[in-house]
């Protein structure tokens, strides 16, 4: 069983192995990767680990209740994630593609709303910025 939180690069194959089966003809995978923006060189992810794990289990349970034939797995990476690397991966397999897409989309939207995870942008000059997705990032830069 893959951990929901990891400090290592995410393996898509490991996630797929946990959701795919011959009964499920459609699989939808979502990968969230660190995007180039201004002078950001990477993002340091941190979490309230115990709550994040509980919340992920609740989100997956919700998805399995809504789409009974679907199986969904999620892994979120913590620690420093460089530009272009994946911070999150979700794999949803279902008998048909509609449910696979819907379950995968549902899970990423709930993650954004519910997961106690935080991002600290690392800038080229070594300063850092906490990201507040509800508004603009706090531009007050704290020395690292």
């Amino acid at each position, binding site marked *: 069983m893959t951990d929901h939180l990891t400090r290592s690069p995410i393996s898509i194959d490991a996630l797929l192995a946990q959701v795919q089966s011959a009964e499920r003809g459609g699989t939808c995978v979502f990968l*969230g990767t660190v995007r180039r923006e201004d002078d950001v060189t990477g993002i340091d992810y*941190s*979490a*309230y680990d*115990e*709550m*994040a794990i*509980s*919340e992920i289990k609740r989100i997956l349970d919700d998805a399995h209740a809504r789409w009974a034939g679907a199986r969904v797995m999620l892994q*979120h990476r913590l620690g420093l994630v460089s530009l272009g690397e994946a*911070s*999150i991966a979700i794999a949803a397999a279902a008998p048909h593609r509609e449910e696979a897409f819907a379950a995968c989309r549902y899970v*990423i939207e709930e*993650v*954004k*709303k*519910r*997961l*106690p*995870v*935080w*991002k*600290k942008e690392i800038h080229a000059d070594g300063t850092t910025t*906490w*990201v*507040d*997705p*509800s*508004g603009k990032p*706090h531009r007050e830069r*704290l020395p690292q």
Partner: protein
Amino acid sequence: MANVTVRFFARYAELTGRESAAIVVPGNSATVADVLECVRETIPGARDLPPRPLTAVNLQQVKPDARVRDGDEVALLPPLAGG
């Protein structure tokens, strides 16, 4: 009276310079809002917390009027940024 553990994360841990605190809230019907008030009064830097931060009790998000009980873990959560 309730003994609770308050946990601080991300920017809030930086503001208060700590990751957790043992807080004692008076009364028999203390709420998360009461805990927050105690935190503000007793922990340096906690005055800079927003007026209504997201909060969780025992790993579940709650509103400020949620009751706290002895032994609860109360967490103050900066704006969520997962994904």
